[in-house]
């Protein structure tokens, strides 16, 4: 790709007709990604979007880069092979709450643990969109769906704390239609290693407005805490902040000018966990980069070990064939 040519969002859009339901949050995420990539200076030839199966996983078809729409739950596994085979590629994983945390939960956990260098965007709509609205592992207790007509009874998984528990070194959150999403994506891209981004995505058909209690314009200020490294954890227009309750060792809401407001240190994993798990009724939802503490990446360690142990050895097939104890047979076969 010619460095001189500055790409635009349009250059990142493929010729494919986008086929999500009108009003689906996926459109906004697609636009945000297409807008962000030119700013990152990304090269479509060197960029690969790998997805599983779900509404969200249709995403790669709409990007004018390389794309691999794999099978349900396996995007992380396929992406691992892509990146190990060619560490130069810029790998984005697109997945849903069912794809990444139900059928593919195992692969998500291991990708994060290994710290493969990639961006993992989890479109969380708290529902199985593609299969017409069954509840998902992130659905809240009581979710009524075709498979839970009387309400779901099992407790949901929290994607951000799942990621932290699995050993992710970068955990962030964004909202489909929120203008700060590109900033979150840029931070994820800048992070070397597995960057886990949960995006709250509205499924207008099967789970409409499930995030309304914190995304609605009217409550946004009160219910959204946008984290900035080195900045105070303020919300509600600066009137409120997040402090630490020494007696209970948990977070608490404090007055914005109280002097108790915590300063966000993304490398503080313990606080990140508390931020990820703040109860929705009493607290705002923590957004932006909750946690970032880079560590060596998996593919770089693999490449380095492959190199180190190969040093001084030649790829001599004939020598390999002759390995071990050999013996020479000289005489002609007996002819009977």
């Amino acid at each position: 790709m010619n460095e001189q040519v500055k790409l635009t969002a349009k250059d990142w859009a493929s010729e494919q007709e986008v086929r999500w339901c009108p009003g689906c949050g996926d459109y906004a995420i697609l636009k945000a990604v297409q807008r962000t990539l030119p700013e990152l200076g990304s090269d479509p030839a060197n960029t690969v979007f790998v997805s599983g199966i779900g509404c969200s996983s249709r995403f790669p078809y709409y990007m004018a880069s390389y794309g691999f729409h794999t099978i349900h739950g396996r995007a992380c596994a396929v992406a691992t092979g892509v990146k190990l085979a060619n560490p130069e590629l810029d790998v984005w994983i697109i997945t849903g709450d069912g794809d990444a945390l139900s059928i593919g939960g195992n692969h998500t956990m291991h990708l994060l643990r290994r710290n493969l260098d990639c961006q993992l965007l989890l479109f969380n709509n708290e529902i199985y969109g593609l299969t017409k609205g069954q509840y998902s592992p992130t659905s809240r207790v009581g979710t009524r769906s075709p498979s839970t007509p009387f309400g779901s009874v099992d407790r949901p998984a929290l994607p951000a704390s799942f990621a932290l528990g699995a050993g992710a070194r970068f955990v962030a959150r964004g909202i489909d239609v929120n203008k700060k999403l590109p900033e979150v994506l840029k931070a994820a891209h800048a992070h070397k290693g597995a960057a886990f981004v949960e995006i709250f995505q509205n499924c207008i058909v099967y789970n409409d407005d499930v995030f309304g209690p914190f995304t609605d314009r009217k409550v946004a200020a009160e219910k959204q805490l946008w984290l900035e490294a080195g900045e105070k954890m303020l919300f509600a227009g600066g009137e409120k902040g997040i402090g630490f309750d020494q007696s209970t060792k948990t977070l608490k809401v404090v007055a914005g000018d109280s002097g108790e407001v915590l300063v966000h240190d993304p490398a503080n994993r313990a606080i990140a966990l508390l931020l990820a798990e703040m109860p929705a009724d009493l607290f705002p939802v923590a957004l932006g980069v909750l946690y970032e503490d880079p560590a060596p990446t998996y593919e770089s360690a693999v490449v380095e070990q492959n190199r180190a142990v190969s040093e001084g050895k030649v790829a001599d097939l004939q020598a390999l064939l002759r390995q071990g104890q050999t013996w020479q047979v000289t005489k002609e076969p007996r002819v009977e």
Partner: protein
Amino acid sequence: MVTATQKLTPVEATAADRAEAVVVRFAGDSGDGMQLTGGQFTLSTALAGNDLATFPDFPAEIRAPQGTTFGVSAFQINFGSAAIETAGDAPDVLVAMNPAALKVNVAALKEGGLIIADTGEFSARNLAKAGYDDNPLENDSLARYKVIAFDISARTLEAVKEFGLSNKEALRSKNMWTLGLALWMFDRDRQPVVDWLKAKFAKKPEIAEANIAALNAGHAYGETAEIGGQVRQHHIDPAPAEPGLYRTVTGAESLSIGLVAGAQLAGLPMFFGSYPITPASPLLHHLSRLKQFGITTFQAEDEIAAICSAIGASYAGSLGVTSSSGPGIALKGEAIGLAVMTELPLVIVNSQRGGPSTGLPTKTEQSDLYQAVYGRNGDAPIPVIAARSPADAYDCAIEAVRIAVQYMTPVMLLTDGYIANAAEPWKVPDASSHVPFAVRFAEKDVEPYQRDARGSRPWIKPGTPGLEHRIGGIEKAPVTGHISYTPEHHAQMTEERFAKVRNVADSIPEQDVCLGSTSGRLAMVGWGSTFGPIHQAVRRARKRGMDVSHIHIRHIAPFPKNLGALLKGYDKIIVPEMNAGQLKTMLRDQFLVDARPMNKIAGQPFMIAEIEAAIEEALA
């Protein structure tokens, strides 16, 4: 044209006469080191120039309670001065390191065969554990055999006394003492074992020395005729063999080298994704040591991740390879379909074991043929090839890689627990004689599903400017590969995928008759590791004047083009298989021939005699 290659005829006449071939079975507790003993005996035997075949027979439990029948580990070797194709039917010699080993193995011993037993282990407690009420060495229950029983344990302790080892450590050398005796019995050189011990215990020289002392003591025990003339030394002449450089090889070794060779011939780095499972793991172990050949090995979190990562690697321009055994292959099924749809090269190795489910993890079977050929959702054809022996696995691996990259398709390579673990002498191939099939990645002016003369689509690596495209498991339009569900497109693409796999038959040899004639009264048709026993049985029957031929099929999907016509030239067709009749059904289906089953579902290879009996019956 049908060609009847009589390649083995010169040695046919000398085959497997009793005087020229001996079967020895070493059996003991899983902690007794029987596999090591067998392995070293194999090496010495190979170095002596005998042809041989081995059969390691492991217990399913890793740490089964000591002294129990289910903890018995055995290693059988058949060696001789003529071509050896199987590990032998009935042992001539059984080395039993404890009562359980005797109990489990004595029934297989040849009438009049020799038992060497360690009385040191025949305590009341061990006898009880093995389920003996009475000591069989002291009653006449073994009257049909020659028995030499003496205290190997005590003699081992005596031999290694000077090294000051603990009792437990000292007794670990029992297997070397026994090996020393066995080497004496068959006039074998001890030096290779000594060298091996020195290398193995380089960091613990006293252990090496103790083992060498035990080995020498066992040998001396035979030499000084303390056995009292019951055993005579036996010399087996070298087997006739093509001149050249030889080594012993197990299937897992030859397969790993074959994959390396295949990747080199294709000019590709290899990505090997796998998840441990018996008996497939040795391939992962071997390849993970060969990084200098441009191999990246990945122990995935499960078999699904193993194959998916290999598919991702193939997509990115490496040779993706994955391997497992039946249960793991089942998990890979959906992803194999993805590779079929996305038309990416991939080699899937299945080291078969007894099934279904967990089945018989350590026992051999060839019951995954249906799974290989048909075991996916949708119409999802893939080429399938099967190795017949450890040495043959090398050529099959190269062939699997060639088909995968030339036809842009997943290829299933079938081997089994027997092939993976068994060893045989191998004439070291000349790497420079292989025909390369270098891959050329598409660089410009091509559509993702534009097909070449073989019916293959181009291999386009991400990173290639101007060829950005999207692929996936959804049905597509021809040429462009854009998503399409139209009836015409689905029908056309399904046919294109079938045609491509059918076209593989253009690039494989016609089916030959490996022993016998191209038509006649009876064809014994086999695949995979049953090659040895079928071949020997047919050879023996032909020596007795019977009109029977042996056809061995390597390419199972697609079959060689002439196979149907060839089969129709025989009055009768029998298909011996270590399953309930899978190839038999495929042959009937594809060629409408009256192929008859002959099944052994015992977790054990066929015995030559069993197949010989079936031939006799069919021709009676």
